[in-house]
């Protein structure tokens, strides 16, 4: 700030003739505004850098939040599917569960599927589930652990009027990179 007045006062007497005046004026303007231009450019770069850094953090937070919501939504849907089976639509219901499964859960389900099917048909089971609450235990971009509190009304040969069941389920969900879907890799009833 203290250095500025010097070149100004030093250069002011320079334009003696009228003709070079525009050029000199132009040059003077350029040299005069140069420092502020540099400061502006530096500030601009700093603002852009800050914008990039904090903007990307914001973006990452949003992406993680979205990922958690997707994991929760998938966990809810697949858990409801798991407790909603009906003798009249048994094959479609079981296939829907298999479609949402992967890994160990898929293998276990596939192994037990014939017996499950037989039991549903034999007892004329009709079960409808609803999610009361879903909660995230932990999660990152690729996997999550979710608690799903589910109630179901189960009708079967022994209880034709239906019986209310209260479940405490915990599922591990994994993001399937191929399909982009979240699938259940583990399902357990918490004791």
């Amino acid at each position: 700030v203290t250095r500025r007045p010097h070149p100004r006062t030093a250069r002011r007497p320079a334009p003696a003739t009228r003709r070079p005046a525009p050029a000199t004026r132009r040059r003077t303007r350029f040299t005069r505004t140069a420092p502020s231009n540099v400061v502006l450019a530096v500030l601009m770069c700093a603002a852009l850098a800050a914008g990039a850094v904090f903007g990307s953090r914001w973006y990452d937070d949003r992406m993680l939040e979205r990922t958690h919501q997707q994991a929760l939504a998938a966990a809810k849907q697949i858990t409801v599917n798991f407790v909603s089976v009906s003798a009249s639509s048994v094959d479609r219901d079981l296939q829907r569960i298999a479609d949402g499964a992967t890994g160990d859960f898929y293998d276990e389900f596939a192994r037990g599927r014939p017996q499950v099917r037989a039991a549903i048909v034999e007892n004329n089971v009709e079960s409808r589930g609803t999610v009361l609450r879903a909660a995230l235990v932990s999660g990152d971009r690729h996997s999550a652990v979710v608690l799903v509190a589910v109630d179901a009304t189960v009708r079967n040969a022994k209880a034709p009027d239906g019986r209310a069941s209260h479940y405490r389920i915990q599922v591990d969900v994994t993001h399937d990179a191929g399909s982009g879907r979240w699938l259940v890799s583990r399902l357990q009833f918490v004791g």
Partner: protein
Amino acid sequence: MPKLKWPRLRMRRGGAACVAVLALGLAVAGAGWYQHEQARQRDVAVRQSLAAATAAAQAIFSYDYRSFDTSVANGRAFATGQFADEYAKTTAALKPQAVSEQAIVRAAVSASGVVTARPQRVELLLYLNQYRRNTNVTGEKVDQNRVVLTMVPVKEAWLVSHAVAI
């Protein structure tokens, strides 16, 4: 004169563009910082409330007829606001029965997760077992509950402001 105006105009335009980019960068940085700070505070809230919830739920949902008042005082320490009053009322009404039945209820948390989270309010889902002993049951009976706890920060500690079994 037009020859003179031209560079000035260019300079002004360049300057204006610079200032606009500067303002945009600052705006994005400010908004990003604020949002990230919110997310960070939410993470802290989740961590602290989850850590506090297990002890809180165990204290609130446990009691022993031999030291009923101590049990209740212990539970009361984890409650805040209207829920604290509600808890005091409920437990006071429960005491005669608990003593006559010689009831001992021990609560244990099997799992806990986050339903919703904000920096000043976290809703948690807990799978809570209550192991009950009294004169009406032989041995021990287990109730498998699902409890939703609403937790709020009060002077550095996270306390229960609402609890409901679902």
